[in-house]
Every structure is written in C-alpha cells, then in structure tokens.
C-alpha cells in the first residue's frame, strides 16, 4: 500500500473522481500551473486541462456563487478557497445560499458542491485563522476535517459523490506530514458523519479533530507512561457530529477532554460537552476540559506558539480531569 501525505491522498481522490465523472470541475486560485496552494492540486492541470481545472480571479464570492450555480445545473464542482481566512469573503454564498437551497426549494434542487479549504497553523505560517465552527452551526452543510491521509482520501471521495454542499477542511499542519498508508487501488469512501476511535483506552475520552488528533495520540503516549489510559476519538466530521460514538466512549471512561485548533468559546468542544450532558449527565465523574486556541485572534510569527493548543496542553488537561495535576 503506498504511503502518501494528506495532500497527495486528497489529490488522488480528486483525480479519481475527475476520471470517473466528467461533470466534476475544479475551481480556485493558483490551482493550475503553480500546482495549488501548498501544492494542493499538483498534477491536476496536466491531466485534466484548463477547462476542468479552472483558474479563477481572486473573487471568492463570485467563484463560490458560480460553483453553486454550476452544481444546480448538473455539474459537480469543487471550489477551493485557498485558505480559511478567505472564507468570510464568500459568506453570503456560503451561508445564505449553498446550505439553504435544497430545503428552500421544497427539497427539489440539489447542490452537489465541495468547498475545499485549509485552516490552522501551517508549513509557512500564513493565514492561520480557523473558522470551521461557524459551519457546524448552520443547517445544510456537511463539514469534514480528516486527520490521517487515508481518511483524507476517503472523505474527499464521499464529499464529491455527495449531493449536498460539503465543506472539506484541511489542517495545514498535516498537509505534508506525516505520511500514512492509503489504499489507492480502491474507491473506498469514508462515510461523512462517522467518527473513529483512533486509540482505545479506559480512563478518559479525548475527543479531537484535525491537527489535534495526532497531538492527542502523542499526548496519550506520554500519559500511558504515567498510567493513564486515554481513548482518542477522531471526529472526522464536524457536521453531522457523531455524538453516539462520543457518548458511548464517555459512558465507559466517565471523563471527557475535547481538543481542536479553533477557539473554545462557542466552539465544537462545547457542542460535544452539551451532547454528553444531554445524553448521560450522570456518567461524568470529573469536570470536563476543553482545549483550543487561546481566545485571541491567532497571532503571527513567534507569538503564535503561545496561542495554539498542542500535545503538552492536552496532557495537562487530561491530568486535570484525572485528578493528577
């Protein structure tokens, strides 16, 4: 089985679907000759040509709107917003239009659209803001964030084949490393809305997404040496949220920590905690801890490390809920 980076796995999925389905068209900035931001579309122009790999003006609203319209009229567009920081420029299309259309047309219109974007800390430090939680709030979106290359490929296949708008969020820090085994010979989709247990454990449920999954696994290794057995859940999807997987885990471990790169306030962790509080309030033996970026606009340069969550902060959080700090 080949060993691919997250980026390579995503490109493999897009290329597979573009070969299989002539309706798939890719739209974005720098997606052609440059090979994409973070080399995210490398090789696609050479194989599919400029008619299907469409270089768009820097106009996020226009290009997302055009992708929605193309989806309504029979195409299956993937539109790339190079970085999550540029999402606000397309917000009318992303919030008022794409997720509403199916419902608002009485269930008639379909919007098979993938919006691909990159968030968080990254290889060259730019554009770190992570606004993913906004899209967990709005009905009509499906939102996925893979944490390992095989899921990145499988979720992208699912996203392109889905008849609804899917926001595909890549954690930039995972773009080029680590590599992981990816079954490139199959068309195996990873279902949207299904979490996975990345590591089983008995003492505490550590629910993570995107870049915080590998950080949580590292934290779990450290904690194992201290005698704390951590279960790590990789959510994979932010909407719909696999609360069943989380609740089942917490019912066994009776302790909960959440970890994501976006902010804590009004965030995904709060939603997880609420789901647990609704489903099994008496299961919790200790107060929960939510780990995320400090409540400041994610800063640049050397200040940033002080704002971001990491394995050490996760370790501290788990120790706290286990009464070891």
């Amino acid at each position, binding site marked *: 089985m080949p060993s691919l980076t997250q980026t390579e796995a995503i490109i493999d999925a897009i290329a597979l679907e573009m070969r299989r389905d002539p309706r798939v068209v890719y739209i974005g900035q720098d997606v052609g000759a440059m090979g994409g931001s973070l080399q995210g579309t490398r090789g696609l122009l050479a194989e599919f040509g400029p008619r299907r790999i469409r270089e768009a003006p820097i*106009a996020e609203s*226009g290009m997302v709107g055009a992708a929605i319209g193309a989806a309504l009229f029979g195409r299956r567009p993937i539109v790339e917003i190079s970085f999550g920081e540029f999402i606000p420029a397309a917000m009318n299309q992303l919030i*008022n239009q794409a997720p509403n259309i*199916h419902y608002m047309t009485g269930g008639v219109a379909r*919007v098979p659209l993938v919006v691909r974007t990159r968030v968080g800390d990254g290889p060259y430090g730019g554009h770190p803001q992570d606004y993913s939680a906004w899209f967990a709030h709005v009905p009509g979106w499906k939102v996925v964030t893979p944490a390992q290359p095989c899921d990145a490929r499988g979720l992208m296949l699912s996203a392109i084949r889905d008849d609804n708008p899917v926001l595909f969020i890549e954690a930039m820090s995972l773009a080029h490393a680590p590599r992981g085994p990816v079954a490139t010979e199959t068309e195996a989709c990873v279902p949207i809305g299904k979490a996975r247990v990345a590591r089983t454990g008995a003492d505490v449920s550590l629910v993570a997404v995107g870049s915080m999954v590998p950080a949580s696994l590292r934290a779990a290794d450290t904690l194992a040496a201290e005698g704390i057995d951590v279960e790590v859940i990789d959510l994979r999807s932010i909407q719909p949220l696999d609360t069943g997987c989380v609740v089942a885990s917490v019912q066994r471990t009776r302790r909960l920590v959440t970890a994501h790169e976006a902010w804590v306030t009004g965030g995904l962790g709060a939603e997880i905690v609420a789901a647990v509080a609704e489903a099994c309030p008496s299961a919790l033996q200790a107060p929960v801890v939510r780990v995320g970026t400090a409540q400041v606009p994610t800063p640049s340069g050397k200040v940033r490390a002080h704002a971001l969550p990491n394995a050490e902060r996760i370790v501290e959080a788990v120790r706290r809920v286990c009464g070891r700090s």
Partner: protein
Amino acid sequence: VVCRELDRALCQANPRWFPIEGEEATVVGSFIDLRTDDAVAPHYRDPFVVYLMRGAEMWRLACQVLGKVGGYNKGRSVPFNGPVELNVVPWVAGDLGTSLGTATGAALAFQQEGSDRVCVCTFGDGTANRGDVHEAINLAACWRLPIVYVCQNNGWAISQAVGDYVAGSIVDRARGYGIPGVCVDGNDVDAVREVVAEAVARARSGLGPSLIEARTWRWRGHWAGDDEGYRDPTLEPHDVEDPLDLYAHRLMERGLADLERLQAIHAEVEAQVSAAMTRAMAQPDTGAAELGLDDVYAACPH
C-alpha cells in the same frame, strides 16, 4: 398585461409584495425570447411573469405570496422564488447580488456541458453596487460564459434615489470588463427584446457575456404598502411612458391589433388572474406540515 394584472392582484392581497408596475417591458423583454432549456435569473421585483413563460402555474405562484399550500418550494423560501425544475435560478434568501453569482454558475455549467444554452440574469440598480456583481461579471468575462446581465434600473433602491448611490453609469462599467454594454429604453418592450436578442446570440455563439442597462421607473413603493414618504412628488418625472400603453399604441399603429382585441385580452387576463387568486385563496395556509425537518439534506444514492 399578465404581468401587471397579476401584480396588482398580489399587491392588493399582500402589502409586502414588491410591485412591478411600470417596469413590465424590461422584465418581459429580457426573457420572452429564451428557450425553455435556457436558465433564467430574474430580479426579485415580481418575477412571476418569467416563471409563467416557463410553464409555471399562476395559482401556484399566487399561493407563494399568500402563504398557502400549493405553491412551489413548499412555502419555505422568499415568495418570489421560482420553480427550479423549470430552469429557474433559485432565490432562497433576500441577499442581493448573490443571484448574479449563481446565474453565472448556470452559464458555467452550460459551457462545461458544451451546449449552446444561455442564462439571462436581471438585477436592480441598487444591487449593482454589491461587490458580488463585479465579481460575477468579471468572472464571466474572463471565462467567456454564455450569460446576459440586464440591469433593471428603476431609479430607486428602497428609499434611496439612484443619483445618490450610482457614481457614473452602470452600463459604462461594461468597458472595464471588456464586454459589450448597451443602454436601452426599459419601457419599450421591442427595444429591450432587440438588444437582449443580440446579446443572447452572442452568448450562444461562445463570444461571452454582455451588460445591458434598461432604464425604467418604479411607479410605486418598494413594497405594496410602502407610504413612500421619502419621495417628493414635485420631483417625479412627468414624461415616464407606460410600457403597456406604448406597446398597445404600436400594435394598433401597425394594424396588429385593434382596441376591441386589446380590451378582449385585458378581460381574458383579468379572468385568468381572478381564477388563479380565487383558487389560491381557497387553499389552506402553510404551516407545520411544511417544516420538513428531513428536507435539509438531499438523500444520496451513492
């Protein structure tokens, strides 16, 4: 005539409906000559006549404005949304300018499928200032998409007068995009048809988009119940032509219709509208049955 009569009935039934009176020639002239496989993206100010051209049923459209069961879209969206199954670009929110983006996407789909279908999109002079308009037209120009943009300039954006918010002229912007821009008398249906036909032919043959500015006049308020306290009657122009009178006189001059025939058309349309309104009013109100908790996502066969 259909446009005006239906609009009057709807305004009477719902003070929140956006009256079209005075602007009918632009609406009709922009869309009447399209094929049914072309996409239409009419402006929100009473686009029903455009949906009727595609085969929508009048009583069902009336249901949308009255909040009755039987309308398209299950009563969930803004009432001016049309039936998407008739190649109508949907209106699902009241945010202006986004419709130009989705309409441009319809044109992208037609170019991708290699057909000669086109999209015609109308928008208001108020909408013209949204950044979305610039983004969409520039994108369409870069990609030579088969679309025609028609600005239905009625002089007003709710309570603001056009001179206060459009610096320069809308049609002149076409030059900046490197596309044809034509200004036309929006009260003359033949004139509108002629310039739109030329732009549509150009789009069909793969030569890309055009921008048309149809100058017309909003006779009434932004909504039917608008008291228009912001309008100074002494400043209203006195030479605004009634597009229906203009066309009626032309038909008679050319011997294509006489007064009797025109009166018969009016009577026929009045009866049609009245029947549609009666049927719509007899329908039950929309409510919990249309909430559709399971209708947010499309089921995926994959």
